[in-house]
């Protein structure tokens, strides 16, 4: 997270941050590989066009457990590096199965908060949790390594197009 301080010497220090969209991925149905996209369309109150967890056309592994706050999911690219460092497992951006791979954003700090990703406004509803399902798909023992570092679930308050390279910043 890049900390930016107020330029005024007299103003109180107000920490802020800005991150970036590193990767975007979607898949239309459970189990199928995530595919990279340069841009995706977020629909407010629904999800991502073409993704398995868009409300109304849900076809994900957990779609039998409806969740309003799972319209888009995010994952820190830094955690991919941490999993490699701590466990020697190479987990790729298309393998963590979240939609947005971020850089420079402490996602765990955002639960309950609103933030912008490109032109869209998201509200973080809860931390994601890993599931054994991902080990079945990847044939990699990543369940334990992903505990407490498995990303963020969000609701889409304002939709729009999100592109790789877009800024992520507080609302």
């Amino acid at each position, binding site marked *: 997270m890049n900390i930016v301080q107020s330029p005024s010497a007299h103003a109180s220090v107000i920490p802020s941050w800005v991150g970036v969209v590193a990767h975007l991925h979607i*898949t*239309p*149905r*459970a*189990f*199928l*590989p995530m*595919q990279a996209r340069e841009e995706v369309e977020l629909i407010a109150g629904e999800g991502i066009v073409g993704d398995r967890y868009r409300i109304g056309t*849900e*076809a*994900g*592994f*957990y*779609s*039998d*457990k409806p969740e309003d706050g799972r319209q888009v999911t995010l994952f820190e690219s830094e955690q991919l590096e941490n999993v490699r460092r701590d466990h020697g497992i190479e987990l790729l951006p298309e393998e963590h199965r979240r939609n947005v791979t971020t850089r420079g954003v402490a996602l765990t700090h955002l639960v309950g908060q609103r933030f912008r990703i490109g032109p869209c406004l998201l509200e973080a509803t809860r931390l994601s*949790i*890993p*599931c*054994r*399902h991902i080990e*079945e*798909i990847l*044939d990699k023992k990543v*369940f334990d390594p992903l*505990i407490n570092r498995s990303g963020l679930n969000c609701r889409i308050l304002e939709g729009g197009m999100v592109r790789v390279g877009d800024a992520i910043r507080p609302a």
Partner: protein
Amino acid sequence: MARHITLVVAEARAAGPDIRRLVLRDPDGWPLPKIKPGAHVDLDVPGIGLRAYSLMGDPAVADRWVVAVKREAASRGGSAWLHDGLAEGDTIAAAMPRCTFPLADAARHVMIAGGIGVTPFLAMAPVLARNDADWVLHVLHRGPLPCPGDLAPWIESGRAVAHDTRAAPRPSLAALLGAHAPGTHAYACGPQAMLDAFTEATAAWPDGTATIEHFIPPALPPDPTARPYTLVRASTGATVEVQAGGSMAAALLSIGGSVELSCEGGICGACKIRWIEGEPVHRDRILSAAERATHVMACVGGCASDRLVVDA
């Protein structure tokens, strides 16, 4: 259906005696999950359940899976439905493929197939060829070849050798395999009698250098402390025997119990149930000591006593 892979039959053709070759694709042509050579897939046969078939296509081809199904006279309905009940354009549900018959890290691979047992080796062949490996596939068959179109390039290249046991005496597996040489790995897939002969022929081989394909799900990793027990539903009195290391949640569902499953790793809390009597073994990571006095996580929990009575 969300917890299945939905596939469309893109192509269905005969491929040898009583054999139907099916090409399965995602309805939109999306890539399918990656597979390993030697993997099999469970196909959901309506009214019957899951039936396992080896995936025989090149694992590098991501947008299709190929299976070949022999019509079995003693079929419980699976192969008959896949022959007669499924047409091009139809959809079928599948589970995530698993590989219980992987390629070994070996310098030389000797493979013995009996009839339709050739299918896993057809997935291994292109991988071995790309790796410039040393390998040979012996196909024992009676009359017409199984999957002749898929075998043809390997027979032409000399990598596969067909042995028609209707035209000539069945070759000795010991002769095909020879004595074990360092770095050699042997594989067999086919009728039980052939597998028995293979086991006998490789009995003196070093451990782990000869493998057989059975369509049996892989066993759970052994837990030295796990033991079998009887699970009892307090509300109905229904009971089910849970094998050592078996899933309490699955057992509970089998007797009509109500349990939610999500992470299946003991951290999400979805499958928390109340226990009433017995000695549960807790393997979750979230329940406090106080909670464990009354509840257990059914996805990972076990039991140290003969019976466990639960309210679910």
